């Protein structure tokens, strides 16, 4: 019995403390270092924050370069396919332009009407969204646990935590981490994402909750609420972070929301430089 316990302790100690011929550190010493780094980072010491910001900027750039081959191959495929579809695409684009031209004519009328209605409602103090930053998606690593992307603009451009991120005016997520040259965007389908939203003609209020799946879900609805398909969901702006009326997606019958922007297909996004009225995260 004692022999077996000795045997166990020898193997245990050896596994933890022994270094191989080519190894400079024992596992035990590295575990201690990792624990120290972890707690310093979690409890947010200024030195670690600054160091992390610098490391993030460097690593994100390297990640972008290292991921070049993975972007190249789908790009070549798409290039060949689009070459053969040029004529068809041209015709489609002409149709789209015609459609936009007709929409443009309506736009002026609608915006004038909107301005007048806002005056009536005395809501002229709505925050301006003209101040936006266009950013490229550097890293879009599809983690099973965290749904986030890294963009190539950071605090240098005036980005701070909590700012809303959109693509084609559709809400994509919000900034949760800023470095000098890059930022991390938490997507709407992440488990940590909670957005106050409004939808349907009764202006029903709910919280759009990410679940780590492709489609976020509407929670905290009125009792016995019956979902109807294809109702557009907008940000309600009640959190003081997102602009009221930013479109997000369409409802499904099971309470999920089909997002207008596919979180896995982001290349460029815009960060709205609106200072959130309260601290986020």
């Amino acid at each position, binding site marked *: 019995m004692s022999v077996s316990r000795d*045997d166990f302790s*020898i*193997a*245990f100690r*050896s*596994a*933890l403390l*022994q270094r*191989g*011929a*080519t*190894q*400079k*550190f*024992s*596992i035990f010493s*590295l*575990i201690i*270092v*990792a*624990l*120290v*780094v*972890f*707690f*310093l*980072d*979690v409890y947010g010491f200024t030195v*670690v924050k600054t160091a*992390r910001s610098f*490391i*993030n900027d460097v*690593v*994100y750039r*390297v*990640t972008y370069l*290292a*991921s070049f081959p*993975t*972007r190249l191959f789908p790009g070549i495929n798409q290039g060949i396919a689009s070459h053969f579809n040029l004529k068809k695409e041209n015709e489609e684009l002409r149709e789209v332009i015609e459609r936009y031209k007709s929409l443009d004519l309506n736009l002026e009328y609608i915006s004038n009407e909107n301005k007048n209605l806002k005056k009536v409602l005395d809501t002229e103090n709505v925050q301006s969204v003209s101040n936006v930053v266009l950013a490229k998606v550097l*890293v*879009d*690593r*599809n*983690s*099973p*646990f*965290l749904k*986030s992307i890294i963009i190539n603009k950071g605090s240098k451009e005036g980005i701070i935590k909590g700012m809303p991120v959109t693509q084609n005016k559709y809400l994509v997520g919000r900034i*949760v*981490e800023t470095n000098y040259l890059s930022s*991390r965007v938490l997507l709407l389908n992440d*488990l*940590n994402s909670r957005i106050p939203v409004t939808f349907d003609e009764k202006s029903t209020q709910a919280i759009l909750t990410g*679940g*780590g*799946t*492709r489609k976020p879900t509407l929670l905290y609805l009125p009792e016995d609420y019956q979902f109807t398909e294809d109702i557009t969901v907008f940000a309600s702006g009640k959190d003081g972070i997102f602009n009221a009326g930013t479109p997000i997606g369409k409802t499904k019958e099971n309470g999920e929301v089909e997002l207008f922007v596919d979180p*896995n297909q982001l290349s460029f996004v815009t960060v709205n430089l609106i200072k959130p009225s309260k601290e986020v*995260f």
Partner: protein
Amino acid sequence: MAKGNILNKIFASGPLILLYYLSISEIDANLEKLFEVFSLNLQIIIIYFWIIKRPNLMGAGHVFVAGFINDVVMGFPLGISSLSYLIVCFVGNYVRNKSVNTTIASDWLTFLIALLFANLLFFSLLNNFSDVAISYEKIGYNTFFTLFLFPVFWFLFNLYQMSFIGSQDA
């Protein structure tokens, strides 16, 4: 002769290069577009296999740095992936010290222990000390698929070892 030596060194560094590349690049084993629940922690499989078979090719320092890079890319608190990878190293080292001959069955069983310890530490630290919320369902699927596909990668890595590095066990 010298050319052969360089080639041997490159082949021997293959697992380490793959580990670093998986940690730093956008490549992931999370095929949620095809199969929503599928996700795999390939880094843990690489570390465990090579620690058991060829510990001299998978230094603990490299494992620590790869985990550190993974944390930066994934947005986790620094050091948490390093810790879970080092736990896998530790279990692998222990199993190697205690066993004379390993088979795929014994490796698979002991890998389950390493995976459980590593994930337990990872998620308990994340839940208790960080603001990041994690879905238990996702953890379960990730652990299941990583364990389930271990034999596939065991064969692939074994083939690589026999073809490019040498057939001798550590």
